[in-house]
């Protein structure tokens, strides 16, 4: 039964490529209908299986925030969605998807599944990048065990959950902001593979940046 899940990315995701309609009223109705559908679908629970074998339940709409899971589900071509609930759990074959990581990921998608979709008319990538994390996300991602934190980011990246990778990335960048290289190397356990000469050369190139106004 397990073999039916595949990672074929050529199928599915066609919905997002539909041509936009220009009539504002239609748009509004269509959006509302879509929202109701997402709400109904999220009542259907599916099971996800971690690399360590732990099984976690998750709403269907929430689970589909993972592009990988969404593609796998699309590949099943199941018209009766309720049947998905009774299927074998979806295996997530990457060692970063530990029990702990998957538990957190399910918590995140369950909280974010009803986020409004990005409006292509006002999609300002620059603005979105600079936006601060929400209070909930900050508490969610503030994880003391760095191995676990890195697992979650790697797992989210593997499962292709863009929003969660962004939360992790912003968290790390916030933590190292303004710190010295030595501090950051120590914190993120980065091995310095430069020779002292190479490092000095880079310092010299960037000297102007440390100059006082």
């Amino acid at each position: 039964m397990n073999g039916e899940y595949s990672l074929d990315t050529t199928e599915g995701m066609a919905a997002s490529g539909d041509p936009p309609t220009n009539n504002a009223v239609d748009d509004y109705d269509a959006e509302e209908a879509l929202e109701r559908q997402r709400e109904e679908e999220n009542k259907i629970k599916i099971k996800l299986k971690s690399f360590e074998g732990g099984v976690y339940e998750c709403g269907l709409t929430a689970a589909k925030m993972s592009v990988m899971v969404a593609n796998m589900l699309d590949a099943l071509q199941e018209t009766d969605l309720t049947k998905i609930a009774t299927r074998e759990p979806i295996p997530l074959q990457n060692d970063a998807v530990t029990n702990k990581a998957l538990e957190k990921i399910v918590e995140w998608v369950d909280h974010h599944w009803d986020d409004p979709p990005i409006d292509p008319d006002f999609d300002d990538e620059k603005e979105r990048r600079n936006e601060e994390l929400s209070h909930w996300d900050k508490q969610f991602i503030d994880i003391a065990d760095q191995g676990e934190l890195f697992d979650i980011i790697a797992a989210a990246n593997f499962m292709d959950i863009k929003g969660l990778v962004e939360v992790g990335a912003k968290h790390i960048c916030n933590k190292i902001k303004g710190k010295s290289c030595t501090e950051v190397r120590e914190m993120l356990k980065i091995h310095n593979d430069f020779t002292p000469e190479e490092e000095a050369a880079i310092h010299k190139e960037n000297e102007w940046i440390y100059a006082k106004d």
Partner: protein
Amino acid sequence: MAEEEDNECQELCQKLQIVSIDMKFTEEEYYPKDSFDRYGDDLCEEILSYLSLEDCFRFECLSKQWQRLVFKSQVCLNVDEVVRKLIIRIDIKSRSEWFAKINWEALESMGKKLPNITSIDININLLSSIVTENNEILLKNLTHFRYPYETSDGNLLPAFVDHYKNSLKSFSIVFNWDLMSAEEYIHVLSLTSQMKGMRELSVPLNGTNVWEHNINSHTIHSIVHYHCEEFVNQWPHLKRYRLHLLCKTDPQVRRVYESANRMIGLRRLEFMFETPLDLIGHKVLVTPKSLSPLKRLTHLSICLRNGVLDETLLDSIDTHYVLSRTHTELNKD
């Protein structure tokens, strides 16, 4: 037969699993779970893309992986960040003003390290540093550029326009009317119209009390005339157009407004008319009908300083087919 295949498949799966477990062990030897080094280049680049430019420069020397990736996804230069370090401020104490000068070496090093910069938003004149004296272009991949024009840029602009004629998408050029002649204004805009890749053009005015500078009627007339007769034919490729213009009389406002209907590719049109005080209370009659050739228009904004727009404009928008779904913003100041 089918069973055999099944068995083979299972065996293979088991082998594969063993292999993957082995790899895990060897990898863990080199990259512990809590080390950032465990991440491949793709994920590493994605994470580092959220760093500020200043942090990028400081962390370049962390490791070879960071050096390779840290600048890759930086696409935008912001005034508040590193750019201000590019400017050497020379204060003149006796007069309460300062001159800005560009730190050339720094900009050159930046141009080399940040190959993907596509957007610069800065309030000082940067053209003289993007184009060197030998007409060499230092930042080659810009798609968005906004800056205040200075008369001394006349010789540098051709090289800039030539390099960017197909690739610059959005350009905003700020003019100071009291410091330049109408001929120069027209020359600069005609020259920049050669950048056929451009989809968005903004022409803002510098300064707030423009009427205090006593700009002569002849200059205004020439510029208005240029916008109505030549400009609208020079820029058929624009999708967004924002113009801030001085107009002495209401026929001038009307002429500029109506002439825009020749730029049929426009999606957004924003006008800001600076009219003199003696037009206060004066009704300026502009109708959406004159813009009806602009079939793709979705945003229209008209702002009139000191004048009043005729209310029938609002009434007629509801009944007029083309503009009925147009987002209209009218400033009846």
